[in-house]
């Protein structure tokens, strides 16, 4: 397996660190090596924030992502700030309900109205991160759907299983059909 380097970006409160942990835990379920880190500090409060995940079969030493091959951007500010840092032929997933303006010729761009889907299909914007991570896993196949589902169920608060599983389905299907 090659080394996967993910950067999940957006604004504070969108659940990107949780999304990063879930992605990491899904890879742990599959026996892979994982390192997850995040940016703290003023930039995490309201401004652009990010979580990073590295997944590999081999031991991971340097824990930070220099240039990701997969970027998720869930706010305009995050898209502006991190949108140029991507490996050639990398993948950028844009929350098109939050980002109006984005262009990058180096990478494949997939637009998904993530927050809008969460609001309209489920009625809760806080599951947007689950929709996003599900789409990301579908597009990359970095882990299986079953592992992702297990990781989501391990991490979420009791009583939210149904809406989170629905969010997983929505993200998965959207990525598959678009």
């Amino acid at each position, binding site marked *: 397996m090659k080394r996967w380097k993910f950067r999940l970006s957006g604004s504070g409160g969108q659940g990107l660190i949780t999304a990063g*942990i879930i992605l990491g835990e899904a890879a742990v379920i599959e026996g892979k090596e*994982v390192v997850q880190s995040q940016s703290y*500090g003023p930039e995490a409060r309201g401004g652009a924030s990010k979580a990073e995940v590295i997944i590999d079969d081999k031991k991971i030493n340097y824990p930070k992502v220099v240039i990701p091959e997969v970027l998720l951007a869930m706010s305009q500010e995050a898209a502006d700030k991190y949108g140029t840092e991507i490996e050639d032929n990398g993948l950028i997933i844009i929350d098109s309900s939050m980002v109006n303006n984005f262009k990058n010729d180096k990478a494949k761009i997939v637009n998904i109205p993530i927050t809008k889907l969460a609001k309209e299909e489920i009625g809760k914007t806080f599951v947007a991160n689950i929709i996003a991570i599900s789409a990301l896993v579908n597009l990359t196949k970095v882990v299986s759907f079953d592992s992702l589902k297990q990781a989501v169920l391990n991490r979420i608060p009791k009583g939210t299983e149904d809406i989170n599983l629905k969010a997983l389905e929505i993200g998965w299907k959207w990525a598959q059909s678009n």
Partner: protein
Amino acid sequence: MTSKKARLIQGNRACAEGAMAAGVRFFAGYPITPSTEIAEIMSEELPKLGGKFIQMEDEIASMACIIGASLTGKKVLTASSGPGISLKQEAIGYACMTEIPCVIVNVQRLGPSTGGPTSSAQGDIMQARWGTHGDHPIIALCPSSVYECFTLTVTAVNFAEKYRTPVYVLMDEIIGHMREKVILPNIDEIKIVNRKRPTCPSNEYKPYQIDETLIPAMADFGTGYKWHVTGLFHDETGFPSGKPKVIEEQFKRLMTKFDKYSDEILSWEETEAEDAEILLVAYGSTARSALDAVNILRSEGIKVGLFRPITIWPFPEKRLKTLAEKANKIIVPEMNYGQLILEVERICKDKASVGGLFKFNSLPITPEEIMFKIREVL
């Protein structure tokens, strides 16, 4: 608490779990970024184990509080970062002088002063050695993975108990905050060391009477053994003494009490170091970048190696000296203005040329930067 299962956890959590696994049942502290999670976890978990967590009014009181708790026989821990560690220094000196077992976790952030609360740094290396005034013995351990945050905290508690000394676990923000896949040992696989307690009748107890171990037996407060505890120089009864002979003897024993145990205390890790012509000396999170640099350059046929001190204080001097005989050049990358390099220069200056790679702008040193530096000196 721990089961043999792969988990994705933070360094700070691994540290807290290591402390509890080693038998720590008392924590006093004042939360500060980037160490806060340790206090949070201890506040949740210690009461479940019958332990105590106290949030004190400040860091000075926190340090004094764990010393007091240790005197009652508890295994104790506090955790902080730069500004808090500075405040603790007077009481750390008191613990060195009175030989009270305690563990201080320092998750290093950028300093001096308030500095950069969320920025990683390795600027407290010399503070760990000389932060409190006067010559004094100290042990400092430096983890470079989440797994080591667990195991080295266990070791720190064991060393504190066995050698009756404050022990630092010197982490950094990157190691404290990152999550990494770990499979932690089961409780029954962990070696636990308890302090030596007096076996004589209480009326014959002399708190600083030593035997061939050089480490006096320590009685728990409240068990009938009388003990005068003072930061003044003292004789074997524990009462102050100003006699030059007494002072000199106590000083010498304090300063040499680890020497006898250096095989047990000193630890380090070597990667391709044996035949290295260029040797990196790196620790904590920076050692991870150094390891990448070594692996990449070795595949290009460049003879680079890594010496990673795990015990930073006392420093594994003898081994580094041997490796320096072979290496032409030594490079010390560290996230500060150049601290451990001073020790490396002292040890290796007659054997090899020593250069540094220092970064102090809140960003980690990357493998690329280390490789660039190596190519520069090739």
